[in-house]
């Protein structure tokens, strides 16, 4: 929460992305002294920054954002929405490209049919296929797919005949 507040305090001084990149590069050090140090390094007015942090000036905004995220199924991070279509987790470039190309094609079709530019985004959102839409209120409760995966010889903990098996696909970077 401190880090989110720091990013919005930087945003208030026009330097959100500079702070974003600092935080991303220093994920191991996000305590308050570190945040103050980053504020100084990116050239913020540190007195103003500290006053924002001490007064939790941006906390309500962040809580609103976070609540909104939960409502549209963005319970994990990172969660992306491309014209309202959800893309969850760290995804390869191709995953973005596929959705963006589909949306570009779709937008071209709508324009050809006579949709005006100022109505285009609403029209695109209206036509999200139900299967690709973000689950309303908590994606975890309604998993979109069920798959059967061979456990093989992969590293595991707990008994082999466990009632619930949690399988993780991940990497170390």
């Amino acid at each position: 929460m401190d880090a989110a507040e720091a990013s919005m305090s930087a945003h208030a001084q026009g330097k959100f992305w500079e702070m974003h990149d600092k935080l991303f590069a220093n994920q191991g050090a996000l305590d308050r002294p570190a945040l103050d140090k980053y504020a100084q390094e990116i050239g913020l007015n540190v007195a103003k920054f500290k006053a924002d942090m001490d007064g939790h000036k941006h906390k309500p905004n962040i809580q609103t954002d976070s609540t909104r995220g939960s409502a549209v199924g963005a319970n994990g991070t990172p969660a992306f929405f491309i014209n309202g279509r959800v893309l969850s987790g760290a995804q390869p470039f191709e995953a973005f490209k596929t959705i963006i190309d589909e949306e570009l094609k779709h937008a071209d079709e709508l324009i050809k049919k006579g949709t005006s530019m100022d109505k285009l985004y609403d029209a695109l959102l209206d036509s999200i296929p139900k299967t690709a839409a973000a689950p309303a209120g908590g994606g975890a409760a309604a998993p979109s797919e069920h798959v059967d995966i061979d456990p093989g010889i992969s590293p595991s903990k707990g008994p082999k005949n466990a009632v619930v098996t949690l399988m993780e696909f991940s990497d170390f970077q």
Partner: protein
Amino acid sequence: MFKQKPLSFHDKAHLASQASLAAHEQGKFWEYHDELFAHQDQIDRAGLEKHAETLKLNMAKFKSALDSGKFKAQVDAEAAVGDKVGAGGTPTFFVNGNKLVGAQPVDAFKKLIDAELAKKK
């Protein structure tokens, strides 16, 4: 259970995956997993060897596994399964086959696990 899914844009992830399986071969997968997770900025070849030393792995065996690409095929095979079941990004979790994508809060896991437990009763 851990399946390897090194992402193409994570340039060091494939070798790190192989290293974790080299540690698995010596019975220390989770110890190695935790070392890598705690030092995600040190996963070049030198870092991978340093973490193996910290865990007192047999270094000759560890290095030879990396040099020969002994676990490369296994990493590729697991990543291919990941693609097939829709685990395109990391981390992706499956609770008894039910998909959960991204870094999720504990409540998201709890819901799925409780639902699965309830089914078994």
